[in-house]
């Protein structure tokens, strides 16, 4: 009676699982390392992909053109007199000065981003703070924050409201302030701004307008919104920075482990294959067994790694990466990322992890399958 192909696979799977379970310790340790590598790569992929998606969705309303002045290659304050000639460029809808800067809080060793909001000019002495600032200073609405001005005097500003925790990704370290208070803190001259922001009618004219600004004021640097979006596309590329070195390290360690595991057939395994061949298994049957062995381990590690990474990034707020991302930041935004999963991501992950493992194990599997039973059993 001939066995159907399906039946044959079932029998081989039954046998493979029994064989794997006989060497529990070895196989579970391989599974654990394999899962960890996939977990690591998948976590970085999920994290960076979500930040990029977030940036893309949130920053689509960023200013169309930001104009900065440069002085000796460094960012400098821009004179308000630059506004009028820029406004006259055909296609420019509006030009507004932006007043913002960094304030270092020496007591708490934290950096805040101070931004002037026009609507707050009517209520000097009041500020709105990001949730990260409020958390760090342990203050709430109506609390007072002292600011040391650049002339050495102190300014005590009252918190009018706190940004919601949902908006931390854009507002965590922000302090909204009136123009009067801002100029006082930084001894900011009255005829300059930090930079200028432009609204443009037709997006196709952005490059032309930027070129005209550059010709008109060669000491300026126009930044297009498209560049801002591209920046986030590039700076959170998971294939760059230190991250990739760490991932390479983990992947190489894993390849060595997989290679060692697959090449170093134990005497017991050799004997097992020898017996199988002696009782009538063909080379193709042993290869089929090796295929299922790889499939069981790879599939289990892949799905465990993927699920754990998803939970880590989206439920546990990427806690394992927190200290790395935090770096020296005192104000650290606590944000929950929105999950974005695509077939492309899963396929990339698969090619980066399962394919190298499979390639590593092909040659040793072939060697195992072509073992001479007589020689093994005599050994």
């Amino acid at each position, binding site marked *: 009676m001939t066995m159907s192909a399906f039946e044959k696979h*079932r*029998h081989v*799977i*039954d046998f493979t*699982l029994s064989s794997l379970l006989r060497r529990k310790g070895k196989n579970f340790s391989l599974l654990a390392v394999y899962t960890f590598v996939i977990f690591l790569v998948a976590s970085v992929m999920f994290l960076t992909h979500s930040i990029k998606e*977030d940036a893309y*969705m*949130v*920053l*689509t*309303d*960023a200013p169309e053109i*930001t104009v*900065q002045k440069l002085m000796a*290659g*460094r960012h400098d304050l821009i004179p308000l007199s630059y506004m009028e000639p820029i406004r006259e460029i055909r296609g420019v809808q509006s030009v507004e000065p932006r007043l913002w800067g*960094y304030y270092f809080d020496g007591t708490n060793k*934290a*950096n805040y*981003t101070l*931004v002037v*909001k026009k609507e707050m000019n009517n209520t000097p002495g009041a500020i709105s703070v*990001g949730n*990260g600032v409020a958390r760090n200073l342990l203050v709430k609405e109506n609390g007072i924050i002292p600011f040391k001005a650049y002339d050495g005097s102190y300014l005590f500003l009252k918190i009018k409201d706190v*940004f919601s925790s*949902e*908006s931390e*990704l*854009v*507002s*965590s*370290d*922000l302090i909204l302030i009136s123009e009067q208070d801002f100029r006082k803190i930084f001894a900011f001259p009255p005829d300059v701004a930090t*930079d200028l922001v432009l609204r443009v009618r037709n997006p196709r004219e952005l490059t032309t307008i930027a070129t005209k600004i550059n010709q008109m004021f060669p000491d300026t*640097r126009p*930044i297009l919104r498209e*560049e*801002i979006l*591209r920046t*986030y596309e*590039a*700076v*959170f590329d998971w294939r760059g*920075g*230190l991250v990739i070195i760490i991932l390479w390290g983990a992947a190489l360690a894993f390849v060595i482990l997989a290679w060692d595991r697959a090449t170093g057939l134990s005497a017991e395994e050799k004997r097992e294959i020898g017996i199988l061949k002696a009782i009538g298994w063909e080379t193709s049957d042993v290869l089929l067994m090796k295929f299922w062995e790889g499939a069981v381990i790879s*599939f*289990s590690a892949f*799905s465990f790694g993927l699920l754990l990474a*998803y939970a880590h990034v989206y439920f546990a707020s990427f806690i394992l990466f927190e200290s*790395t991302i935090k*770096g*020296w*930041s*005192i*104000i650290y*935004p606590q944000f929950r990322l*929105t*999950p*974005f*999963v695509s077939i492309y991501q899963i396929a990339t992950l698969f090619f980066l992890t399962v394919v190298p493992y499979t390639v590593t194990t092909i040659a040793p599997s072939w060697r195992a399958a072509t073992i001479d039973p007589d020689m093994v059993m005599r050994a």
Partner: protein
Amino acid sequence: MFNRKSHVLLAFFLVNLLLVGLLFVHARVVQQKNRVSFLEKRKIVKELQLTDLCIFTDARYTRHPSMADSNTPFQDHPLSLEHFPSGSLMVLPPHLRPHGNE
């Protein structure tokens, strides 16, 4: 039903596939749920004319990478090497690369 190991494996594979499939569903549900918070963030960006996300707050050029110029990591003093941890995590923005925006 699970009297053979291959059956257990099949069930295990199916459960895992189902869970991986659920990731897509969960992601879609959360995306829908977070629409309001996305709109809120977009509104803040538009109103305050913001240009960057607040992810790193230790260095100026990682707090506002799109505003950074090529000197910022070194501008504390001449020969000041880039030393903030977040500087090593972030890849150089395209506008600061040797071939500009190409």
